[in-house]
């Protein structure tokens, strides 16, 4: 029994390597999705005043792309989307295509139940590496990663969260409670460059002592000695001081929308992973990386500690006493945001003589008379649309922020122009879009490839 499963570890690895080689070949030949998926809008004409370094001879502007195929249950492996050719210098068309992390193999271990907020961080770090070309093998527990059942759900019942966080990966179900499962994992780790896992992990010692560099995601700093303390994302946003900063001072503190603690930690873990891979490649011993969500939240919220250290009093949520406030407009809301130097421009924009009042001449004065100030500002917004406010404010150099929902961003001109949202193929839905990695490399994006289905993961096992 043990022997056969040990072998299965080898088989998994062989299959995985082979598939990855095929995948890379596909990318190399610039193979794209099946024609039915290629219904992506081409780039609009380039703006005339483009003055950036991206003139055609200096480097390539991004090609129309943003293709991706997802929902692998319906899209077999031959529908793997080609990412854009990111290193191709058009003057050397024969240069082989590659993705920047294509030479690395990573294992992402989703062990027995851990708090979902940790799992999301691990998965995001793995996703970024996978979209950049690393061969990422996700180890799921029997029954699959619980994130497969987490909201938001697509109308098909599949988890949008899982699909977003697991693009471009392969997956295999392994029972890490069994000796044979752990033995298979050990084999896989022996051939990987890095392993991402969550604390507390039954496989931690295995992961820390393998050839692969350990990238560990935890809830708390080591000094707290709190590996088994119950945890949630809300609790970490609270503990790290972020909630104290958001809301009305006399009312309860609020969290930021989305999974910000997990995702900030996932971005951090990716950067730690990149640092470890760079060390490996430079011939150094790669450092073990540990990321705790509690530390990341505090690091992101550094102005709380900095402010408290500088003045003796902690900054906190100011709500209606804040210089930056959200005000209603004709079709929604706008965030009033401006820097010290932009105050004169804001005054010219609103063009209300009452703003010349000496009470508002200094920042201290504006803070002291904030209610009076907003009484003057607010009516200016009431009869204008977000689009009009954003446009006229930018024309005067004032960075007001029209508030958009994720649904509205689907049709946002800037995002369309940059093909930031990748089209996703689906058998029943018309048009699904998901963000690509938020970077363009020599003008090219990294189109995500589909997340693995549970059926594929079980088959691989």
């Amino acid at each position, binding site marked *: 029994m043990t022997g056969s499963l040990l072998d299965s570890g080898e088989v998994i690895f062989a299959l995985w390597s082979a598939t990855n080689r095929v995948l890379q070949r596909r990318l190399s030949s610039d193979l794209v999705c099946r024609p039915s998926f290629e219904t992506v809008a081409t780039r609009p004409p380039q703006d005339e005043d483009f003055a*950036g*370094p991206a003139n055609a001879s200096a*480097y390539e502007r991004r090609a129309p792309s943003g293709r991706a195929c997802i929902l692998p249950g319906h899209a077999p492996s031959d529908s793997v989307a080609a990412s854009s050719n990111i290193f191709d210098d058009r003057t050397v068309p024969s240069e082989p295509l590659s993705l*920047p992390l294509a030479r690395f193999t990573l294992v992402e271990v989703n062990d027995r139940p851990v708090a979902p907020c940790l799992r999301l961080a691990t998965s995001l770090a793995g996703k970024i590496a996978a979209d*950049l070309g690393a061969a990422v093998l996700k180890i799921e527990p029997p029954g699959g990663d619980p994130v497969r059942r987490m909201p*938001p759900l697509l109308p098909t019942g599949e988890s949008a969260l899982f699909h977003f*966080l697991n693009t471009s990966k392969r997956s295999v179900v392994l029972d890490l409670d069994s000796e044979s499962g752990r033995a298979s994992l050990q084999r896989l780790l022996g051939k990987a460059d890095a392993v991402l896992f969550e604390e507390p992990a039954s496989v931690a010692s295995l992961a820390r002592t393998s050839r692969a560099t350990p990238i560990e995601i935890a809830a*708390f700093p080591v*000094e707290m000695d709190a590996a088994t303390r119950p945890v*949630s994302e*809300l609790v970490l946003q*609270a503990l790290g*001081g972020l*909630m*104290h*900063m958001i809301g009305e001072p006399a*009312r*309860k503190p*609020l*969290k*930021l929308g*989305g*999974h910000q603690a997990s995702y900030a930690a996932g*971005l951090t*873990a990716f*950067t730690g*992973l990149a640092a470890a891979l*760079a060390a490996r490649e430079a011939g150094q011993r790669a450092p*073990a*990386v540990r990321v705790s969500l509690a530390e990341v939240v505090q*690091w992101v*919220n550094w102005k*709380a*500690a900095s*402010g*408290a250290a500088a003045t003796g009093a902690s900054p906190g949520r*100011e709500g209606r006493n*804040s210089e*930056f406030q*959200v005000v209603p407009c004709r079709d929604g*809301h*706008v*965030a009033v*945001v401006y820097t*010290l130097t932009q105050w004169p421009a804001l005054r010219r924009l609103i063009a209300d003589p009452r703003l010349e009042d000496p009470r508002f001449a200094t920042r201290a004065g504006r803070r002291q008379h904030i209610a009076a100030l907003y009484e003057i500002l607010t009516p200016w917004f009431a009869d204008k649309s977000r689009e009009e406010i954003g446009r006229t404010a930018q024309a005067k150099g004032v960075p007001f*922020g*029209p508030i*958009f*929902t*994720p*649904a509205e961003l*689907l049709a946002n001109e*800037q*995002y369309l122009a*940059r093909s930031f949202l990748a089209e996703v193929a689906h058998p029943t839905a018309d048009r*699904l879009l*998901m*963000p690509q990695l*938020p*970077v363009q490399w020599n003008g090219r994006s990294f189109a995500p490839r589909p997340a693995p289905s549970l059926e594929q993961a079980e088959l691989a096992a």
Partner: protein
Amino acid sequence: MKGPLNGVRVLDFGLLTAGANTSAMLADLGADVIKIESGAYIDPFRVVGKMDNDDGWWNRSPPFRFTNRNKRGLALNLKDPEGQRVIRELAKQCDVVVENFRRGVLDRAGLGYAALKECNPRLVFAAISSQGDTGPERMNVSFGSTLDATSGIASITGYEGEEPRISGMDVNYPDQIVSLFATGIVITAVMEARRSGKGCFLDFSQREVASFTLGEEILAAAADPAYRLTPRDNGEAGVVQQDAYRCADGRWIAVTLDSADPSLDAFCAARDSGAAVAALLARGIAAAPCSDGSELLADGALAGATLVRDENGWLVKGLPYRLDGRGITIERAAPELGQHTDEILRELLGYGDAELARLKDSGVTSTTPAIGDV
């Protein structure tokens, strides 16, 4: 400093958080980071955190100190052709450029990617901007919470049934996360440049980074036009009950329950926050106080690697992660304006006393700001 980026030199035009913190994270990994300012344009963090009006005020700003430790400082007038020439000479000796100017600013100074690539084809050029380097909104300006609004994060942040909320000027959340992502991508590009001898242009849109953190929301909204997108309060889809609860001592604690319990309000109201958290944890329930900055400062175990002191004893930003279990020792405090100008120009360009004096006398280099406010 020993680290994965030993031998990497960074020309750092980064300002405030998004740019300056990306290069700070590269410095923490062993890169030699040269922060470029000028008397005519100092990092706005030197002014935002102004503590007094005495001579040298620009060197005492806490937010500047927090963000720019482990860097060397060079002050050079980028509007002067002579200053521009020096930058192009320096670019030949550097591996990475980090900048977060408004689009076009460096191009107009003859210091954009196209120009610097001519000097050094291995250069990894990280341009961090509000909207990215292309598209109809590429020239837009933003400041922190502008992007809470335009990215979608604000739309699902706020009290139930009320208006959306931004993270505000004391958090400016979108600025913070861009450096967490950009640093990893720059490292990836450095690895590629080491291998291939070719650099690249990295175009980061801060707004896209913020929207990327809502990937599943965008996907769900694309699939279902009826998908609900309003402020979520402290709730979370799929979580039975969680919120902030006020305790007897007036403090708020955050609690997440696996099964609903309508008595939790009364339970918290009857206890001090410390006792309530302890009792909940003992029952296996996730709970924590809503810490403020003073509490974070006082709790060294919780702060972990995120806060450290520089050689002057000042508190500065540490690391968001550990390498081999450790945080960092600050090798050098944040530079005074132009502190290392002469040292760097001697070391990298071989300038002598006469040349340095000429640059100083002509106002190309300086150690005092020409402005009081930015």
